[in-house]
């Protein structure tokens, strides 16, 4: 057995065994819910379920949720999943009872109003068909027509089940997708064998997504989950033959959890708000100590990029309707500074619905957030790297979901996704317009379709070139680009941090960092230019660009900026130098293309070119230019035409 899928976001309870034994006597529902919130393997899940069932023969009076009667209808052994289903419901404060059909009899029972299934009066139905059952009858000798007919037949049988259940019970219906447990016969090109059972599973999973949508049925995407955990973690071929358990018992807690989320979502009980800590959660370091240029965020280090990924994930959640809040132990001015001024911040102030940065304890803080937003504490998920704060909030506010957080920010987005707190069964228009930044894929596609010529495409990109002088927040990225860029680099001069700082101090030089933003997002800092004045000449000491933005008029627009900066230094003439290397041939004619006159051609292929600034007229382009003290915001934009 491969390692079982872990409920890794739930905290380990070191005294679980003792507390479980004590539950026998205390019969405390709250304690049972608390134990269900621990990281349980399948044995402990079964143990907790057994004791809870002994302690409670009916829902507690205090139960705030509607009890659920789940009909689990399937084609193989499912009894080993019951405990995990009940415990996953318990974790959410829900009471679940389960009916399972007699082995293999799901269709008969659905057809028979006198059956035990009907007497059970389910309030939710879960169809859990195994791959062997759904592909029975298919064989490798079939031609395409026969295979097609088999697929249609299976799909209509499933649709019939949905219809019968819907008409009889008028309740939410969930269809489990099919686990990819059958061995292929061809290999990578399995799809060329019409009668392949493995291929049939893939086609069923595809078709189920469409059919379920039409029928208003929710899916339980076991196939997706098995991709995350690995199929071996979910299925054990030996065990299938042994007990007809398609889902191996060690995967039961994850199975129950996935179902529990759906049931909770259907009751409107999914979490609604992600509360973010700041220091070492959405950026590296402590803003109060390390300052704006000391925190780790953004391009330039793997860690900094990891924190960007955390922010991007949070922003994407907010774009599909999850509210974001901040709870930080900080002076508010310090905590806000990166949101306003750090160029690599993905999250901006307007993404945060309520911002609590103070020195109160986090439990008080989070209570205030719930009050600000007028939502229940049980709608909140609290993300904090600090185990102390997590433990405090878990203890003070048991309703708040507090996931364990991986040490490495790179792992945080998937950990949050695994935790499934924000399970949703539909995306409403409301969700999407909750933030104004939302841009749909449709818009992107229609743009590509409508852009029949390059100009039209470039115009439609809504490009904005945001430029800043070199500064400390951008220092890391500047140094990184200077030392890493090989191709679009006119001189390939490498500078240390101190040398870049020297440019910042030098009154006879300028350093520009340029960021390109378009309607599809922020490309980050994509160009660096350093100019040095010598008499009335301004020498372009360094000009480098990211190759990602070639062919988008960025070069000409950058020249407008360089010319303006050179004029401000009092320059009359701009000198552009090309120093050939093995990698930068692509920019050999860079200055000539921009209208410079070559005044010196060197033997090694290098050159010096000049541009008279008095005669220079800025090129027109589709790029809007703005000076930005921040990255993403449309700061007071200005045309560069006047120079």
């Amino acid at each position, binding site marked *: 057995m491969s390692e079982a899928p872990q409920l890794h976001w739930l905290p380990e309870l070191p005294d679980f065994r003792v507390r479980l034994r004590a539950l026998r006597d205390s019969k405390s529902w709250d304690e049972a819910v608390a134990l269900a919130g621990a990281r349980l393997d399948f*044995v402990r899940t079964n143990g907790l379920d057994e004791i809870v069932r002994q302690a409670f023969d009916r829902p507690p009076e205090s139960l705030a949720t509607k009890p659920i009667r789940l009909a689990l209808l399937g084609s193989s052994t499912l009894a080993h999943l019951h405990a995990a289903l009940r415990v996953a419901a318990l974790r959410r404060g829900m009471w679940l009872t389960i009916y399972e059909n007699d082995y293999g009899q799901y269709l008969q029972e659905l057809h028979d109003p006198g059956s035990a299934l009907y007497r059970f009066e389910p309030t939710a139905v879960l169809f859990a068909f195994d791959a062997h059952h759904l592909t029975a009858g298919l064989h490798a000798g079939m031609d395409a027509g026969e295979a097609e007919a088999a697929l249609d037949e299976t799909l209509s049988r499933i649709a019939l089940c949905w219809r019968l259940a819907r008409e009889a019970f008028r309740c939410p219906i969930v269809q489990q997708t099919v686990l990819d447990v059958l061995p292929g016969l061809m290999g990578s090109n399995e799809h060329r064998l019409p009668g392949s059972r493995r291929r049939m599973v893939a086609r069923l999973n595809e078709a189920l997504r469409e059919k379920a949508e039409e029928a208003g049925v929710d899916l339980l995407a076991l196939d997706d989950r098995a991709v995350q955990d690995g199929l071996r973690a979910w299925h054990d071929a030996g065990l299938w033959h042994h007990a007809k358990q398609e889902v191996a018992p060690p995967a039961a807690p994850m199975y129950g959890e996935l179902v529990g989320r759906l049931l909770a979502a259907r009751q409107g009980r999914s979490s609604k708000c992600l509360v973010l800590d700041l220091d070492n959660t959405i950026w590296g370091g402590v803003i109060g100590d390390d300052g704006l240029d000391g925190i780790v965020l953004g391009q330039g280090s793997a860690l900094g990029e990891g924190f960007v990924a955390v922010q991007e994930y949070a922003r994407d959640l907010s774009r599909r309707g999850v509210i974001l809040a901040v709870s930080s132990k900080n002076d508010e001015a310090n905590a806000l500074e990166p949101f306003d001024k750090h160029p690599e911040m993905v999250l901006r102030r307007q993404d945060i619905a309520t911002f609590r940065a103070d020195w109160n304890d986090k439990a008080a803080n989070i209570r205030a957030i719930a009050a600000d937003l007028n939502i229940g504490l049980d709608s909140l998920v609290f993300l904090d790297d600090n185990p102390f704060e997590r433990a405090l909030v878990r203890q003070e506010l048991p309703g708040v979901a507090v996931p364990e957080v991986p040490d490495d920010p790179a792992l945080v987005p998937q950990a949050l996704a695994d935790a499934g707190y924000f399970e949703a069964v539909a995306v409403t228009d409301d969700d999407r317009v909750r933030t104004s930044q939302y841009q749909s894929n449709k818009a992107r596609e229609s743009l590509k379709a409508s852009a029949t010529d390059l100009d039209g495409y470039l115009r439609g990109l809504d490009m904005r070139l945001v430029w800043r002088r070199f500064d400390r927040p951008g220092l890391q990225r500047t140094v990184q680009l200077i030392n890493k860029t090989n191709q679009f680099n006119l001189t390939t001069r490498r500078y240390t941090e101190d040398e870049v700082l020297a440019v910042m101090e030098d009154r006879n030089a300028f350093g520009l960092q340029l960021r390109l933003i378009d309607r599809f997002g922020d490309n980050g800092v994509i160009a660096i230019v350093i100019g040095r004045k010598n008499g009335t000449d301004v020498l372009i000491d360094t000009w480098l660009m990211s190759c990602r933005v070639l062919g988008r008029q960025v070069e000409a627009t950058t020249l407008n900026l360089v010319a303006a900066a050179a004029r401000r230094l009092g320059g009359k003439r701009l000198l552009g130098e090309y120093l050939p290397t093995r990698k930068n041939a692509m920019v050999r004619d860079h200055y000539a293309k921009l209208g410079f006159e070559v005044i010196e051609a060197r033997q090694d292929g290098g050159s010096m070119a000049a541009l008279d600034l008095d005669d220079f007229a800025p090129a027109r382009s589709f790029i809007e230019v703005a000076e930005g003290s921040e990255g993403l915001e449309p700061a007071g934009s200005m045309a560069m035409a006047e120079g």
Partner: protein
Amino acid sequence: MTDREIYQGLGEIFADVFLRDDLVLTPELSAKDVKGWDSFKQIEIVMATEQRFGIKLRTREIDALQNVGDLAQVIAKKTGNQAP
């Protein structure tokens, strides 16, 4: 892995599976001695053993298990320890 470690690990598995802290594991202990040790519990014990000791039991090995001693022996073999 020593016998002692194997029996200690198995002891915790049995305590969690049967919710009892008074079971004393001996090589002779078998399903007939423990209330509730049915075929489902048998699978649970095998799966928990695989997870805990990081091993995989073959169908033949599972079918041949008669008592705790058999299970301990399989674990010893697969974790690179001489059987007692």
